[in-house]
Every structure is written in structure tokens, then in C-alpha cells.
């Protein structure tokens, strides 16, 4: 079971929900929390655990050997202008490269072999019944998508379908989010009942519907703003899984990083509702 926790708007509570839901479920099951917000993974600030594995992550980029006829085919075929002919040499701009292999495969002189370039690091943690996997993009790397894809591949290889996997996704509706939610069995869109929250929720709903994924909404900080988000969900037949109140105590625990240890009681009812809605006991089998 793959549950993606996403949102259009940033700061609505994706990480708060991911970490608390994963912790809550770990009382019964053995869930896997996956931090796909690789540009700024922060589930680790809230969920402690022992590091049990770490590995460098790579993307493949072409490297010019220097032995070629300068036919120019490589630079012409590149959709991202990552291969440039500078006089009598070929310059590779690896940050623009999307690893499509076209230049490398088409080169008649095999002068552009693909080589590994490090883009980040993946780490795996364990605490009691909870597994956590996170990847961090290296400073200077500007493509989150390949690292997100490879992180999901790692999780699929190491945790089979019996694990409940909770993916904390990056905000927005761009490529990184598409990659993060792709293949999810269910997407939880976290929003807040404000005009900003609604505007970005609509964008996210449009994306998730286009991708044909099943989804529902969690309204966080319920009680602020207005009723437009609730009305929008009702009018569009979107289920609301939970309404987490705008409670100062939740904010205080969260700011101290102890929401999942000491403050979970304030969320348990809502998390239980999500568990029941998604029928997780059927998916994973208790224990």
C-alpha cells in the first residue's frame, strides 16, 4: 500500500501528517516513512531512529572522450542544450542533462560514454516498528526528479506490498511532485481552509485527477479562514478524511519536535479515522 501525502501549497502540514500518521500506524503495523522532499527532507527532525544503511545516489551523464569527428549530431539531438560544441571540443553541461542517452547512443565514434555523477545520498533508519528512508539532493544539483525516482525504486526493492508506505512529497504541482505521487494507491492532499490553501488545492486536484489517482483531503488548521475549501470538496465529491483543528497545543508540541512522542494524543482520533477510511488493517493485516 503506497500512500502519498502531497499538497499544492507549501507549509500546510504534509510532514506533520506524514510523521504522525507513520508513528501512529507503527503502534499496530510496521510502516515505512519515505521522505521524498529531497531538496529539504525534514521528517528526520521529528522521527528519530538508528541509521542502518547509507548509499550514494547517481545519475548518468555523457562524458566526451575527445576522440571524434565533431559531426555535431550530439548537440543537435539534445533537447535540453546540455551538449554544446565549443570550437573543436564538446562541452557537457551536466546539470541540464536529463540522462536520456540520446547523444551517447547516436554517437558513431562512441565518444560520449555515459558516466556516473553523484547527485545525493540515500539513508535508511529504523526505530522500533518504524522504518524511515530519506534522500538528500547534493548542493548544486537542481534536478530532484531522478533522485525521487531512484528513492522510490529503492523502497520498492526493499519493502514489499505488505508494508504500508507513506511518502512525504515535495510541495507544488511540478515534475518532482508528479514523480513522487506516481504509482500511489492513494493520495492525501493536505490543505488549510484559506484562499491560498484552496487555490493551490485546486491545482493539486487537477494534477491528481489527470494522473488518474484516487485521493482525498485532510484539512489542517481547521477553524481558521473560511468554509470555501469544505464547499469546494463537497461540490466536487472529494472525500475529507480528517479535519485537524487549529489547536495551539499541537503547534507547541510541533515546534518542540515532540508532537509524535508527547502530543500524538491530540491527533490520534484523526489518524485513526484515516486508518479506517483507507482500510489499512485489511491491507497490512494487524501485526
Amino acid at each position, binding site marked *: 500500500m503506497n500512500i502519498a501525502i502531497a499538497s499544492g501549497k507549501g507549509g500546510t502540514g504534509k510532514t506533520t501528517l506524514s510523521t504522525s500518521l507513520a508513528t501512529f500506524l507503527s503502534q499496530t503495523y510496521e510502516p515505512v516513512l519515505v521522505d521524498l522532499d529531497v531538496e529539504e527532507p525534514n521528517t528526520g527532525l521529528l522521527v528519530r531512529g538508528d541509521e542502518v544503511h547509507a548509499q550514494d545516489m547517481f545519475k548518468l551523464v555523457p562524458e566526451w572522450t575527445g576522440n571524434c569527428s565533431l559531426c555535431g549530431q550530439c548537440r543537435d539531438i539534445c533537447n535540453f542544450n546540455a551538449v*554544446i560544441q*565549443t*570550437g573543436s571540443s564538446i*562541452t557537457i553541461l551536466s546539470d541540464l542533462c536529463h540522462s536520456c542517452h540520446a547523444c551517447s547512443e547516436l554517437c558513431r565514434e562512441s565518444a560520449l560514454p555515459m558516466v556516473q555523477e553523484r547527485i545525493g545520498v540515500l539513508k535508511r533508519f529504523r526505530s522500533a516498528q518504524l522504518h524511515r528512508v530519506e534522500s538528500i539532493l547534493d548542493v548544486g544539483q537542481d534536478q530532484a526528479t531522478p533522485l525521487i525516482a531512484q528513492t522510490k525504486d529503492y523502497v520498492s526493492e526493499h519493502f514489499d506490498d505488505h508494508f504500508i508506505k507513506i511518502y512525504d512529497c515535495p510541495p507544488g504541482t511540478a515534475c518532482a511532485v508528479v514523480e513522487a505521487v506516481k504509482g500511489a494507491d492513494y493520495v492525501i492532499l493536505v490543505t488549510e481552509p484559506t484562499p491560498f490553501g484552496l487555490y493551490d488545492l485546486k491545482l493539486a486536484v487537477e494534477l491528481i485527477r489527470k494522473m488518474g489517482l484516487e485521493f482525498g483531503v485532510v484539512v489542517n488548521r481547521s477553524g481558521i479562514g473560511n468554509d470555501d475549501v469544505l464547499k469546494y470538496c463537497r461540490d466536487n465529491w472529494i472525500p475529507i478524511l480528517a479535519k485537524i483543528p487549529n489547536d495551539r497545543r499541537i503547534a507547541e508540541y510541533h515546534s518542540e519536535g515532540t508532537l509524535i512522542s508527547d502530543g500524538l494524543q491530540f491527533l490520534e482520533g484523526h489518524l485513526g479515522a484515516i486508518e479506517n477510511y483507507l482500510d489499512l488493517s485489511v491491507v497490512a493485516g494487524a501485526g
Partner: protein
Amino acid sequence: MRIAFSSEGDSWDSMVDPRFGRARYLLLLDEATNELTAYDNSANCAEAHGAGPKTAQSILDKNPQVLITGNGPGRNADTVLSAGGIQVYVGAGRMTIKEAYEAYKQDTLTKNG
């Protein structure tokens, strides 16, 4: 000397385009003949990714020794232009091509890098 300009138009009186990668036109001046040739750069303008290096590639293909522009090329375009051995002058964004050329001759433009 062959000198390239990023330009908003196709003549001596056009303004230098302060943008490099998405400049509307590229102009090439051949000092030997005083001939100014305009190249439409709108295709590179519309690139979703890597407009800078693509425009730098277009410049290299015209084989100038000098580029005069406004805000200056970004990192990737700069890598390409440096590899091509082109001397880049910046800060001409509020000048016409004619004014920018005069400023270049009087050596009052800023060398990039």
C-alpha cells in the same frame, strides 16, 4: 575583430538586450568591413531549458572574438563562452548598439570574469 551583441532589434539604433540567453536578436559586427548582420534569436528565446547555452552555441557558431551584452550570461552560458575563448563585456543594457560599440572602443565597458 568580430563583435557579437545581444540586441532587442536588428540595427545600430536598436537597444542592447539586457538578457543574454533570451535576447531577441544577435547582431554580429565585422570591424574589417563595418558590416552589421542581424540574426533572429527568437527560437532560442522560446527554449524551455538551457536558453543561455543554446544562445552561447549560436554565438560560437558565428565565430566572434568579443560579446557585448547587458546583465551577462549565466553560469552555463559562461562555461560555454569561456570554452570558446570569447571575451565578454557586460553592463551595456541601457545603450543602443551604436553607443555600446563606442563604449567598447573607449574601453568603458565592464569585462566579465
